[in-house]
């Protein structure tokens, strides 16, 4: 059974069709790319999967369970984490707290525990803390634990966002243009990092990216969409030579 399967997914905004009849399925442990021209509907797909939008038509099934009608935090609790195209950290909270809060769904204690600081509360807080520190360690961010993200350079903010998503220990990680705004050197670092995360945490990754270097070197399979529907799917090599993809997206020459 695929981890995520999408069938006939459509989304309209008023008269505008952002997505029409998309099919897709992700197997457990895969790393897949999603590319397409600007405004093709890629982010919309992620928004639908993470529950921020409700689909106009079609189904999203996560590990055998349809997600329609679920609120985003419930979908997150099912194991879907994501990053955002425009970074959305909690800028005035410390990096550490950012990562703590993302573990909300598994706090496992109630309001009264908070007031009484019960053993359950303390145990849970300790675990949350431990996971946060572990992740910061793994991503080389420990020295920034008490910084506020707004004071960090853009590249680090991207990493913090990935760390935050990973602290949820998701089964499916959606990365929306993780390399945007990263310098060439940092892109290489990112590629390594994503690969490491994928291997270490056995997480399924689906990423949108315009930097071909990233998709081509990471993904085993790539989906290309344009104007809200699929135009190609296959291995990086196949996609790179697909004339439709070249025409709509890649362009045939460089500067």
């Amino acid at each position, binding site marked *: 059974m695929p981890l995520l399967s999408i069938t006939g997914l459509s989304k309209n905004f008023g008269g505008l069709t952002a997505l029409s009849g998309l099919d897709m399925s992700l197997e457990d442990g895969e790393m897949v790319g999603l590319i397409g021209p600007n405004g093709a509907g890629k*982010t919309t797909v992620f*928004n639908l999967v993470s529950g*921020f939008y409700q689909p106009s038509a079609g189904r999203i099934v996560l590990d055998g369970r349809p997600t329609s009608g679920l609120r985003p935090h419930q979908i997150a609790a099912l194991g879907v984490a994501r990053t*955002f*195209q*425009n970074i*959305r950290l909690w800028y005035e909270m410390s990096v550490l707290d950012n990562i703590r809060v993302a573990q909300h769904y598994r706090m496992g204690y109630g309001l009264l525990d908070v007031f009484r600081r019960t053993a359950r509360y303390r145990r849970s807080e300790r675990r949350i803390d431990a996971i946060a520190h572990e992740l910061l360690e793994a991503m080389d961010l420990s020295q920034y634990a008490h910084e506020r993200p707004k004071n960090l350079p853009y590249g680090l903010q991207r990493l913090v966002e990935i760390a935050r998503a990973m602290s949820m220990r998701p089964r499916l990680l959606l990365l929306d243009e993780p390399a945007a705004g990263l310098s060439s050197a940092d892109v290489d670092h990112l590629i390594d990092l994503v690969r490491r995360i994928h291997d270490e945490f056995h997480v399924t990754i689906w990423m949108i990216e315009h930097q071909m270097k990233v998709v081509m070197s990471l993904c085993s399979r790539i989906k290309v969409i344009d104007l809200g529907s699929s135009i190609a799917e296959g291995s990086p090599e196949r996609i790179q030579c697909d004339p439709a993809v070249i025409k709509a997206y890649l362009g045939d020459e460089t500067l």
Partner: protein
Amino acid sequence: MEYFFQNVLNALQWGSFYALIALGYTLVYGVLSLINFAHGDIFMVGAYVAYFAATMFLGEVGLGPGVTLALIVPLTMLATACVGVALERIAYRPLRRKGAHRLYVVITALMCGLILENGNLALLGASRKSFPELVPTTVYAFAGLSVTNLKLAVIATAVAAFAVLHFIVTKTKIGLAMRGIAWDSFAIPLMGVPPDRIIVFTFILGSGMAGLAGVMFAMAYPVLEPYMGALIGWKAFIAAVIGGIGDIRGAFLGGFLLAFLEIGVAAVFPSTMRDLIAFSVLLVFMWQRPTGVFGVARNQKI
């Protein structure tokens, strides 16, 4: 039937005041997302300026009531515009420059309002002022309805003010810049737009409107007191929000909606329950329409 239409007339006139004040309110509010709690008090200052000017023109200068009216309207608008701009320069702008959270500016506005109210009380004493009758009131009675010339004038003024402001905001470049600042005041100078000038212009327009409302109000309800603007300021805030923050059409419509709600409830239910029912309706309305009539939520797209 008569009862119904009479109340429609009542609501129209009362709504005109809400609309008139909410228009000025929403301008500043829309541009700076500053809930200008001092707006009601600028309105009060307007009424007082009009009062002093009118008594002076009528008394010492000896002008006729018509000329007096023609003079005090621009004079008052000018005076309140000055008050508005002064508040902006002295109190709000430095805070904005320092990057204060908008609510600190809001609290400052609240404090400015208090200073205006109580400063007036301390300066002029607690005696209320009676606004002189500039236009003899004529009551037109027809089909069991009665309406005064003043009511009609107020409604007309509100409509005219709306038309002018709506034109400025939607059709002119300065209006475009005003809407731009509302979204992102940092990016606006990058477009070559001088933000301070736009903001001052907004305050002139908004506070001028408060002055206009002050004159009209003083004529219709000729009892002036230092706290007269406090409640109506809050109501204008409500009206502006019901309509949708920062939308001129919203402020206009919101003013009338609020008045129709208040007057409608008082007309149908026991008036002792008016606030209870009217605000419950309002609550449900805002719950069902989380961004008012015309408002658009920010952040629909991530």
